[in-house]
Every structure is written in C-alpha cells, then in structure tokens.
C-alpha cells in the first residue's frame, strides 16, 4: 500500500514536471524560431548601381536607390526616337550575372508600335543585348544570364516608335526589373 502511494506520488510529480517541461521547451523553441526568422535577414551589399547617362536631362532620368525612372521619354507619331544614353548600370563589385525582366507594359499600348532597349558596354563600346520591350502588340520576353564584368558600365539605349494613330495624350508606362539571383 505504502509502495503504491509512493509510486503514485512520484508518477504524479513526474507527469506534472513533464507537462510543464514540454510547455517551457515548446514556448522557448517557438520564441527562438521567431527570433531566427526576424534576426537573420540582412541587406545584401549592392554591387550594381544606376547612373545617369549623357541624355539624362532629355530623358528625365531620376535615380532613387535601386529605382531609376525615365520620366520624359517621348516619341513622334509614325516615327522613331532614340535616346542613346539616358541611364547606365555600373557594376561596383565582382562580376555579376543578372536577369533583365520586362515586368509590365501598360497604358495606351494599342498606339505603341515598339519599344526596344539596347545594351552597350561603355568600357568596350561593344553591343551587348537587344531587349524588345514591346512589339507587334505584345510584351517582349525576359533576358536572363547577362554577365557584367567588374567595374564595367553598360548604357541602356531606348528606341521608341509610336503608330500614326497615336495622339499627344497617349502614354505608356514600362516597368523593367534587373534581378540579381541570390
């Protein structure tokens, strides 16, 4: 009887401690997990940066951190306008491979004939890539695996063609993204 009582006391005590232990361990682990998620995300050092090109005034180039905006690009109806150097991309770090994504093309696209962005190296003057942003009534395809060497600067040449039906109030907004795979 005495042994039974002792065992019963001990098992009750053990069960109570086990339950509280599980509670404390779970709460601690959850808190650590929360801290791990919030505490480990840092900011990657920027190796690519936008720079204003020679045509920045006519193109209305504005650079704010990782975003470059070309605010006053214009083209005549039924004609072509080329901005040879509105914005540049400089690689400050080690060689970087990046993707140029055509995110969105919106606005009066029915009157837009084509938008083409051509990439040239300022260091070697070599032609790098032809990026069709808009042509034949459709968005162009993304360009991946573009490799920019250390300390190289690429200029982005913009070629804009409106259709003859375009009017002065027509506007098209293009959003391009440069993605550096982690």
């Amino acid at each position, binding site marked *: 009887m005495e042994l039974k009582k002792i065992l019963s006391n001990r098992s009750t005590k053990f069960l109570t401690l086990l339950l509280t232990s599980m509670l404390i361990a779970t709460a601690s682990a959850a*808190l*650590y997990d929360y*801290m791990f998620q*919030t505490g480990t995300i*840092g900011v990657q050092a920027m190796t690519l940066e936008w720079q204003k090109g020679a045509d920045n005034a006519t193109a209305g180039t504005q650079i704010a951190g990782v975003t470059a905006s070309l605010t006053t690009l214009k083209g005549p109806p039924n004609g072509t306008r080329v901005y040879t150097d509105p*914005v540049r991309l400089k690689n400050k770090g080690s060689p970087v491979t990046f993707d140029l994504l055509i995110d969105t093309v919106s606005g009066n696209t029915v009157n837009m004939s084509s938008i083409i962005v051509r990439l040239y190296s300022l260091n070697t003057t070599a032609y790098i890539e032809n990026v069709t942003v808009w042509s034949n009534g459709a968005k162009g395809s993304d360009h991946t695996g573009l490799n920019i060497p250390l300390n190289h600067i690429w200029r982005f040449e913009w070629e804009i063609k409106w259709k003859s039906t375009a009017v002065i109030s027509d506007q098209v907004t293009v959003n391009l*993204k*440069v993605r*550096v795979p*982690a």
Partner: protein
Amino acid sequence: MQALDWTGKKVAPTILPEFFVLLGTDLFLLLSLLTCLLEDKFPKALPYVFQVAAVIGFGHLMISKEFLGVFGEYMRFWYCFFYLLVALINIVAINVRFATSQKAWILAKAWAGTVTFPTIMISVFFVSNYGYVSSAEFPLLLLQVGLVIAAVMIGVSAVIFLSPDILPKLRRSKEVK
C-alpha cells in the same frame, strides 16, 4: 525601371547566440525530470528549482527578443553562453555528488556516460560551430581539446565497460610494487 530585387541575403550565422539559451533551458528541463526520477538521492525541491531555472532561460529569450536591435552579437553570445555554462556546471555537479558524497559509483558512471558526456559534447560542437561560422576565435582550440577529451573518455569507458575488473587489478598491482 526598377533594379536590384530585394534578395535578402543571410548575413547572420546559421545559429543565433540565443540557441545556447535554448540548449541550456532544455538541459535544465532534463535535469528536472531526471532528479524527479531519482528523488531519493536529492532534496525534494530540486526538480522544481531546475524548472524555475528553465523558466529563467525562457525569460532570457524574451529579453533577447525585445532588445535584439540594442544588444550587440558579442554581448548576446556571452550572456547566452554563460547560461549554458551554468546548466552544464549543474550537470557536472550532480555527477560529482554521485561520485563523492553519495559514493554511488554505478550511478555516477551511468550519469557521466548518458548525461554529462553527451551534453558537454553537444555544447562543444555547437559553440565551435558558432565560432567557426561567426569567424570568432575561442581560446584553447575548444573543439580540438573537446574532441581529445571525448576520445580519451570513450576509450577509458570502453575499457572499463568491457573488463570491469581492470580497476581492482590496477590498484592491486600498485600495492604490490
């Protein structure tokens, strides 16, 4: 044009310094349960004392979470490591208590093999790993020393386990000389 997507590169080590508090908390909980099972050998309140120590560890984590941006990683590491050290000291102290004041040799050996040795090894592993990832240097080549001690302990334990009469034999041979 929008450039340079937010890639969120991980810059912190793969384990946070608070991991040592988590480990220490778990060790205190383990001690609480084991001292409850061996309650004849310890004061009745001891399991509860260890539970309170574990709750303190939880509080430790709460403080770290609230002041994550204020405390530097160096400070966080040291107060977390100190907590783990206290837990390990308790484990070793119980081992010593078994071996000395209670003369419970079998229990002391079992405790050393199943609790003291593994917990110390796990702690050494994680501290070394943390030091390696954070490019911090720990004195006395902690990992190497830990591994040597572990190897010696495993060796001695294996010998004693396989031939339990080796210790009396050694003692007798010393007496003869």
